[in-house]
């Protein structure tokens, strides 16, 4: 399994997937950093020092959340595109036959591919997250509260998408799998946004629809958990000493007014394991 994982990781590297993603990410970071610099340059704060500190911090957190939200799209895109044809595509183009006839179980082959791609995605997502956090620190002096758990949650998102894409590629052709994965991701993002707006507007139906989409694909829920993790660790504010300025409300649709419970984290981890188990079983039983 580890031979295949290493092979898959090297494949992503040699095919310049990481390089291309890196160049795009650098462009994104330059754009984001420029925006950050000029946005913070134009700031005007209240005369009350406590309120000024709070707003200054919340501005940094808002810009960070926006950055992470948008970075999530790039990471999700890379996760889906990297895995979309990893089984079906290799059967279609004939590269899987020599490998699958080797003394290697189908489970080892599939999980090897998963772990190889996961290693690439985790490295990419971690560097992306730390670069964004570094930019925020450079421009505002704020160390993102709960940096380590937030990083772990940011990494979790591509792993969720990777698992559903790997499951899809064991029984769907490449194009169909791409449509399914991107479709579900769009559904999860739209549902998550609707859930937050539902809380702001007081619409229970909108909140429930978001919850349901989180169960179908907990990608957006992971982002909301990340934001909640950061906001709950803010040194001041937190909606207690300034009840009229709930930080989550300031973050608007990028915030986490409707925060998923800890059970959602358990559900997400179980989701990955179950999807991989289904993928292994489907791959094991199919003709190649």
């Amino acid at each position, binding site marked *: 399994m580890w*031979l295949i994982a290493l*092979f898959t990781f090297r*494949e992503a590297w*040699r*095919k310049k997937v990481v390089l291309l993603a890196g160049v795009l990410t650098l462009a994104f970071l330059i754009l984001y950093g420029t925006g950050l610099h000029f946005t913070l340059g134009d700031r005007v704060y209240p005369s009350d020092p406590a309120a000024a500190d709070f707003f200054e911090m919340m501005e940094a957190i808002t810009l960070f959340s926006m950055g992470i939200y948008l970075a999530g799209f790039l990471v999700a895109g890379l996760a889906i595109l990297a895995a979309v044809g990893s089984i079906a595509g290799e059967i279609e*183009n*004939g*590269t899987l*036959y*020599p*490998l*699958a*006839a*080797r*003394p*290697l*179980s189908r489970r080892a082959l599939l999980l090897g591919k998963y772990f190889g791609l996961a290693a690439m995605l985790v490295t990419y997502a971690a560097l992306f997250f730390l670069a964004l956090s570094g930019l925020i620190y450079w421009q505002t002096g704020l160390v993102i509260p709960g940096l380590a758990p937030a990083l772990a949650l940011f990494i979790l998102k591509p792993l969720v998408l990777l698992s559903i894409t790997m499951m899809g590629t064991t029984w769907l052709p490449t194009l169909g799998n791409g449509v399914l994965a991107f479709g579900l991701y769009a559904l999860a993002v739209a549902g998550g946004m609707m859930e937050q707006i539902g809380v702001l507007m007081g619409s229970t139906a909108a909140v429930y629809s978001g919850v349901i989409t989180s169960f179908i694909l907990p990608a957006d829920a992971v982002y909301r958990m990340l934001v909640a993790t950061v906001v709950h660790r803010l040194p001041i504010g937190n909606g207690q000493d300034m009840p009229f300025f709930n930080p989550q409300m300031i973050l608007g649709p990028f915030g986490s007014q409707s925060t998923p419970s800890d059970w959602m984290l358990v559900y997400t981890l179980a989701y990955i394991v179950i999807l991989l188990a289904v993928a292994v079983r489907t791959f094991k*039983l199919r*003709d*190649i």
Partner: protein
Amino acid sequence: MAIIEVAHLTKVYGQQVACRDICLSVEEGQIFGFLGPNGAGKSTLVKILVGLVYPTAGEAKVVGYAPQDIRGRRQIGFLPENFRLHGWLKGEELVAFHARLAGLDGRTARRRAYEVLELVGLAGEGRKLVANYSKGMQQRLGLAAALVGDPRVVFLDEPTSALDPLGRREVREILLTLRAAGKTVFLNSHLLSEVEQVCDRVAIINRGTVVADGRPEELQAGPATVAIRLGALTGELAAELRRRYPDLQLEGDRLSLALGSREEVAELVARLVAGGCRIYEVTPGHNSLEDIFVHLVKEGELLCG
């Protein structure tokens, strides 16, 4: 000892029967040729034997194990038809990777990779990216990958389809070398002359069913033709021969007809001499594997409409 055993194996895709009740047995150390027209079920059977496809019914064993069994897979090599190799790797990296998958350690894998690259005529080409290889070179590289684990059984599905005549001859020599080393080769090929030259046993499959199985000389001992140049053939004897051999053709002093087997040639000549004919020349027709193949495939088409 049979190293490949197939018993009543059937594979059905939806409504289409790819293999129907196939029974085969291949002895260790043989080159076994598996022939059939396009879509006859050859590749499906090979895929079943290497564990890529599950049979609908029946059983197959390779090296004493079910095709999905890892213990058996350690002892096989496989060159698929219509395969593609990972173009981002260098040739020697690809072969060494297959060696690692076959269970060799890193150092042995690299050494073995050089050996098989040399064997297939790619010595000195190993540092090129596979993407830059020609189709023929890729086929040689695929063969190297199949052989790198030093397997007891090698399944080769159309191994020479992209090669020029020189390359085909080299592959034939490799097959003979493998046989000399005691390896078993299961060869799927359209190239009948190639099969005829190297195979110890041959099976012909048509429409998913094995229609002939045996040593090439056994198959060739079947229906035969003969051409005879003769004189003094009487009308009475000619009529008698026409009754016995309906497709007899007589043009001048040349008589040609089809016999049940080549053994009947002597009997025919004896009858002609006894009937007062003078025999100037007897030319038995060569019953090539291609003749048998075409005959069996056409027969199958007639039976199935």
